[in-house]
């Protein structure tokens, strides 16, 4: 296909004797969402970590827009928006400052308006002046997700983004991701929520029933 965004070929990852990922292939084109599902321990997070360069596969390669995906290149970091399942925060920066930092670091000119809009959308306006340690676990999750939407992106890589969100939050997330697709972005979504996967994803890759 012409506008292949993410191409994963033959990713293999072993931990000692165990082969967690065995030559996994994955393709995402622009405007498409691909779900990755499977039971606990089937290697979903490991696959995402290998894709975004947080882990090194024993074999296989990952291409982003036809080029080797190397997170050390700044262009790659601009295109790739990642939310893994555990996220650390600066303990002494407030919610709005975290988002401001990301927006500015990405060179967003209208950082303030953008951050305000996203804060409103994810429902963190009320707590925008608070420190991360004082947020509820769902609010922390929302903050992590918000960081995706205040920055430029062409591919979203999300590991269980729905965890700890309330029912409305999950609904909002689903709509938001559908809108992201409509804007021509690609999505890789790991999730244990079948409804969310059905709503967002065009295709589903199943891991762990070898």
């Amino acid at each position, binding site marked *: 296909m012409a506008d292949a965004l993410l191409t994963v070929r033959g990713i293999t990852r072993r931990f000692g004797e165990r082969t967690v990922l065995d030559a996994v292939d994955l393709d995402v084109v622009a405007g498409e969402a691909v779900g990755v599902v499977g039971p606990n321990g089937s290697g979903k997070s490991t696959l995402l970590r290998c894709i975004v360069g947080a882990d090194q596969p024993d074999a296989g390669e990952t291409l982003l827009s036809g080029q080797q995906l190397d997170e*050390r290149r*700044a*262009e790659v970091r601009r295109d790739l928006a990642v939310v893994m399942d555990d996220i650390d*925060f600066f303990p002494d*920066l407030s919610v709005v400052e975290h988002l*401001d930092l990301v927006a500015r*670091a990405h*060179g967003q000119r209208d950082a303030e308006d953008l951050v305000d809009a996203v804060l409103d959308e994810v429902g963190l306006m009320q707590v925008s002046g608070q420190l991360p340690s004082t947020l509820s676990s769902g609010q922390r999750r929302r903050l992590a997700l918000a960081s995706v939407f205040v920055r430029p992106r062409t591919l979203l890589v999300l590991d269980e983004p729905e965890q700890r969100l309330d029912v409305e939050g999950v609904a909002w997330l689903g709509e938001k991701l559908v809108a992201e697709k409509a804007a021509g972005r690609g999505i890789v979504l790991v999730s244990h929520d079948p409804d969310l996967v059905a709503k967002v994803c065009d295709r589903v890759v199943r891991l762990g029933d070898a």
Partner: protein
Amino acid sequence: MATLEAPRASELRGQVREWRRGRAELNYWEVASDAYIAIFAVVMIGSMAGNVVLNLRRLADDACVGSCAVTRELAPWLSALAVAAVVLGVARLLGPVFSPPAANVWLLGTPVDRGALLRPGWLRTVAFTVVGVVAVLLTPAVLGGFTPSTGVAFVVAGSAASLACVALAALSQVHEHAAARWLTWLVTGSLWVLLAATADGRLDGVPSVPTPVALALTAAGLVAGAVLAWRVRGSLSSMSRRVLGQTENLSPALSGALSSLDLGLMYDVLLARRWGKGATVTSRRGGPVGWWALVHSDLRRAVRAPQPFVVLAGMTLVPYAAASADAGRALVLATTLAGLLAGPPLCAGLRVVVRTRGVARMLPMSTAQVRGAHLVMPGTALLLYALGTTWTLLPLMPTQEAVRLAIACGLSSLAATLRWVSARPPDYGKPMVSTPAGAVPPGVLSSVFRGFDVWAVTALPLVFGPTGTVVSLAISLGVIAWLVSSDPA
């Protein structure tokens, strides 16, 4: 694709600094008075320590002859090697290039130049290494009986060598090769060989080198350190997040523990790291039941991670080196101190039941029984270590007394180690104590001296003849019994 637009790292740093400054609760007057107290404390302690060192030097100048003079000549080189080994070990543990997890998530994922983000941290590491090593090497330089100019050259060369080690560790971290591991083995190995040769009395002094050669070597060391550090600076931008992720959690946790002076927490962090991500073990099952199951689990730990026991065995060289320096009966101080330093790493199992009450509560035994069980392995090891030093005492006293003294040394080390390990985590809920370094929870300050207090009261009597030995034995046993059975705060 549009041209990439990203702000400079310094702009971002400025922004973050501004946010932070906005909410600083100290006013400038408070900051100034804190700084004043800190400087005052450093000057006071520095001059006191300096005085002690100068007095010791005068003493050594007067009293040190024969084999003592040889040991004295070797001591600075031994310390320089030891410092390099420690610096290298710490550097490899922490990175040496590192960035905290929050920065990894929020900054390193953005298009901002990675090299520029990591550079200030690296420069801090370099400065810290150089200043720290210079400060540490001053004492051996003075005590080693150098002339002033040789002493300066020694300190400069020593810190340059340590810097080169750190930079090499950083380079092998960036490029993921094993050079740093080999270097660590090389440095530790040479230290051990030199120590063994000193203890053996085989060396008759440091080979004398003509001054120009020494100066040239010093200059070469300086150049090597600077060039390597510069090369690291250049390669920071090719650092991958994966490599940074390997140590990201350790350094903030450790620096947090360090800034609150909580050595116990540091121990726990290191223990967690040792068995953290990426560690694998082969499970073994079976063994005795009841109380002996705990002892057996400690034995299994020792087989799984024998390094602390190897270090303790290596430590036997310290008293032998002290004996070759004609320390007389005072060498028991070296024996017990080395035992205390090598002791805590043996107590991983004990530490867990002290720190994590939940684990101890799970077991159908009294606290004393649980702790006693976890004391069997370290106790046996420390006693064997102390008995291994009996030969240093034989020239000074009859065999029977030497054995008794060695046992007393072992028990003293065990008591002091137990005291160190049974430190409770500080209670951050209680009112803080204000210090020049900021507010710290009560009990943390004393945790720095923890263990050394018991060492002092049990080791000092050993110097004063057979009666002292008996007194020390009694105190050690009392301390051990008390710490095992009670719940000291």
